[in-house]
């Protein structure tokens, strides 16, 4: 019996590497510390009531961002491990199989479990506030989306300690990801981790489209909407057209691995190239999905900190919509080297280049928003200014890659690696950081220390260029991606060394950010934002107290222009003491609110169980999970008591505490 248990455990748990044991121990200790702490401070009930079952978009947004930071930590550790392995020729710090797992998890985590939740977090906290809505269209679904993402992310990360991590690259090209070459459970963790969270992403896409189209404040026509919701709309349109393809494609790969189907296998008539096409039909829009909201954030910030209207509003809107559409017509540029023929390659090279046009227009518009403005350099603006040169040069290498015959030389080399980190870190990560710093006071009611923030910014920037500029050179030297080591005679050492130093600087930059947040929490009382408008903002979110009350707006705003809050402030200034608000004119009335629900977290737990069962072929887990899922859905369907009204007195007293609606 004991022997049986032992042999099961050695298969079930990941063993053999001291690094992994170390991680196991630290994960275990952290978990114990959390449980003990929560119990000691009697916080379980609070956690359940206020957070785990909440349908408040602001809290859900905060949970998304928190998860994204955790995942950024894990993905970042993966990155540092890789850079350490590559610091010198013929290093044997990581075994090849371990290295292969690490680059796979790094990619998956950074895109799907860091960038996506960070983005959804920002959607959640800001879109309703910016469009003057009290919540998203479907609060219950929103909570479900978050918990599905969380269940998927946890399932994926579980492969670190149980069963073994996937090792087929972040897009898991078959035939390498098929049973024939990859019989372990890692690839199944990959499929189900992404599948579960991907369904959550799809629902978020639907949710925000409806929110933006149907829930804008009275008077806010589409063309009066701030640029961030516009970017969210374009991103969500791309989500609803691309994520179904991902869902279907992963389902097919799953059937290959689980049910012996032959979609992408080498035998039985399967066609691996079909997978590569399908996955990039999702994968390419995906990178635009994450970068478009960053464009929106930069537009907001550049206008606020230049104290000037956004230049070329309409151009910006059209540019984003064009990008959103074009992103679906370029997927084959990821495999010019597949030998599809000159016609196909020429077509996809052209569509790819076209994207440079609207993107370039956006850069000019940002520049001319600053032109004749009054620029100040708070941290959100620093990230924005850091982004422009970074993205312009990254875009340049992108155009180079789109020249199909030249791509034959760039493809799969470090040139490509440098390019996409260049645009994704320089565009997406810088953008989300800018957004987080910008909206932090609105979210938590206090400001962060600018000085530490500037240290973090400079470490990120210098580290970034040190890390990735040498990788362009390495690509031109012929170094290909995913190699675990290289020989001395290739002459790649110096560049790799510089690159690793840069990565370490970015690691330090992350620590600065953690310190900044800890420092901010500790000194939050001193740095409280009592005005609700710490940056002299322009849009509706700055017209309400910080942090926003749970019902967001005591009365719905009446919007008559772009930058309504800025206009309102101008009107009040000109009107002097007797000026009347044109923005908030109504009387306080009871507010209709959704009730919290435990069903989303339970449903996601069921998905987790079912996914785990699929990974290990434990049918009873699958049955339990799916039955649980069905029961939860029916329970929710039969419950018609899902909302309540906040009485006027409660709103009045809550508003009075921030000095509003006192009469």
């Amino acid at each position, binding site marked *: 019996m004991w022997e049986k248990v032992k042999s099961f455990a050695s298969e079930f748990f990941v063993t053999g590497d001291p690094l992994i044991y170390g991680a196991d121990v630290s994960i275990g200790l952290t978990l114990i510390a959390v449980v003990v702490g929560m119990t000691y401070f009697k916080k379980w009930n609070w956690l359940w009531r206020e957070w785990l079952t909440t349908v408040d978009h602001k809290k859900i947004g905060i949970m998304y961002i928190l998860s994204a930071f955790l995942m950024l930590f894990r993905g970042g550790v993966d990155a540092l491990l890789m850079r350490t392995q590559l610091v010198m020729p013929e290093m044997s710090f990581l075994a090849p199989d371990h290295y292969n797992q690490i680059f796979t998890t790094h990619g998956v985590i950074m895109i799907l479990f860091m960038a996506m939740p960070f983005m959804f977090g920002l959607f959640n906290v800001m879109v309703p506030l910016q469009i003057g809505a009290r919540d998203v269209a479907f609060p219950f679904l929103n909570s479900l989306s978050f918990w599905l993402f969380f269940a998927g992310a946890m399932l994926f990360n579980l492969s670190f300690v149980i069963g073994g991590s996937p090792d087929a690259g972040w897009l898991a090209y078959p035939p390498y990801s098929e049973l024939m070459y990859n019989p372990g459970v890692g690839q199944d963790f990959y499929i189900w981790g992404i599948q579960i969270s991907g369904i959550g992403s799809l629902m978020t896409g639907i949710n925000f489209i409806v929110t933006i189209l149907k829930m804008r404040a009275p008077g806010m026509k589409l063309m009066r909407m701030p640029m961030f919701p516009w970017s969210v709309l374009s991103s969500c349109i791309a989500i609803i057209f691309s994520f179904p393809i991902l869902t279907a494609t992963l389902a097919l790969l799953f059937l290959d691995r689980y049910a012996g189907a032959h979609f992408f296998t080498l035998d039985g008539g399967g066609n691996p190239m079909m997978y590569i096409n399908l996955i990039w039909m999702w994968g390419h829009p995906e990178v635009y999905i994450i970068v478009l909201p960053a464009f929106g954030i930069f537009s907001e910030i550049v206008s606020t900190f230049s104290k000037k209207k956004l230049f070329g509003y309409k151009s910006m809107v059209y540019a984003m919509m064009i990008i959103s559409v074009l992103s679906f017509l370029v997927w084959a540029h990821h495999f010019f080297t597949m030998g599809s023929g000159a016609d196909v390659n020429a077509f996809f090279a052209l569509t790819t280049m076209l994207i440079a046009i609207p993107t370039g227009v956006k850069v*000019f518009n940002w520049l001319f928003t600053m032109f004749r403005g009054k620029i100040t350099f708070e941290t959100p603006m620093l990230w924005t200014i850091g982004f422009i040169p970074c993205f312009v040069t990254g875009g340049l290498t992108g155009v180079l890659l789109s020249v199909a015959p030249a791509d034959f030389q760039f493809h799969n080399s470090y040139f490509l690696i440098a390019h996409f980190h260049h645009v994704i870190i320089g565009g997406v990560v810088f953008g989300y950081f800018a957004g987080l710093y910008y909206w932090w006071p609105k979210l938590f009611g206090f400001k962060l220390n600018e000085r530490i923030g500037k240290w973090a910014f400079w470490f990120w920037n210098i580290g970034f260029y040190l890390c990735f500029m040498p990788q362009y050179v390495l690509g031109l030297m012929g170094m290909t991606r995913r190699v675990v080591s290289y020989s001395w005679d290739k002459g790649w050492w110096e560049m790799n060394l510089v690159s690793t130093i840069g990565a370490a600087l970015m690691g330090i930059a992350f620590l600065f950010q953690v310190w900044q947040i800890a420092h901010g929490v500790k000194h939050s009382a001193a740095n409280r934002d009592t005005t609700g408008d710490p940056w002299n903002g322009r849009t509706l979110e700055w017209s309400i107290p910080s942090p926003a009350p749970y019902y967001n707006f005591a009365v719905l705003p009446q919007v008559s222009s772009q930058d309504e809050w800025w206009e309102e402030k101008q009107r009040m200034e000109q009107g002097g003491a007797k000026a009347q608000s044109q923005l908030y004119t109504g009387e306080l009335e009871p507010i209709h609110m959704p009730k919290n629900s435990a069903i989303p977290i339970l449903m996601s737990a069921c998905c987790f169980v079912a996914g785990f069962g699929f990974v290990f072929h434990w049918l009873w887990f699958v049955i339990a999970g799916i039955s649980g899922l069905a029961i939860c859905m029916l329970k929710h369907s039969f419950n018609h008591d899902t909302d309540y009204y906040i009485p006027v007195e409660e709103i009045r007293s809550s508003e009075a505490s921030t000095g509003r609606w006192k009469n």
Partner: protein
Amino acid sequence: MKVTKAIKRMAIVLAPVMLFLAAGCTDNMAVLDPKGPIAAQQRDLMLISTILCCIVVVPVLLLTAFIVWRYRDKEGRKAAYTPRWEHSFKLEAIWWGIPIIIITILAVITVRSTYALEPSKPLESAQKPLTVQVTSLNWKWLFQYPEQGIATVNELKIPKDVPIRFEITADSPMNSFWIPQLGGQMYAMSGMAMTLYLQADEAGEYWGSGANFTGTHFSSMYFDVESTTQADFEQWVKEVQDKSPALTSEGYKQLVLPSTEQKMTFSSFPKGLFEKTVTQYASASGHHHNMPLMEQEQEQENSTEQKQASHSGHSAEGHQ
């Protein structure tokens, strides 16, 4: 004030790094040091497109620095401040226009070069091309010279100034065949024989690699490439024919098993080995009489949608 200081500080940090990078750039840049016509044209294409992009990018970078500097908020600044200026048809027309012009020029260049440098297009040469059949195995490369009847592992010898017609397949996960100094890469896929023409203009030693991840020891898939005079090449072929062992079917089966290998040479290989390697994966997609759609596709290769479908069938037939 603070920002200027910070920029100066950054410049001080970055300057030596840039110098260091520039120094490192001069040697070892295989892609920028072509030894054959294909790689040379691809290098030129990279340079032309870089210069074209720089026409926009450099002014934008300068403009960014200028605007951020001039319009920073400080006491008593003289620069104009126009908080409501938000639209100018002329300006916007300019920056829709300029990228459109640049991209149009680049597009023309790209389309032309895409046809000119289509990998399966034979090179113009007085010499008859030499065929080398390339198979990606876990984790080594097998090269077969059907005209000479010899085979090698992880070692490629070619005569200079002679176009080489590579036929590339895989008996492993998908790989990518790449010799940076001779020209761009081509995927090695099971069930298909992809064609890639390359040529070396001078005698010398180069290297090639597997550029697409194939598993544990993927990083060991480098191979040596040596281009020699025609006479030396023939001499080498003769030596291999005389002195090396033969590659048997059994030997190939051993070779397919996952392992890393040193260089090997074989005086002969089983007849039709390459074709068999290709068709063992392609055969499953037979039954073309059921596929009117795909039949059409083979004729006109323009369509993108079902491209991959026609592929498998196409190359399989080509080798039956």
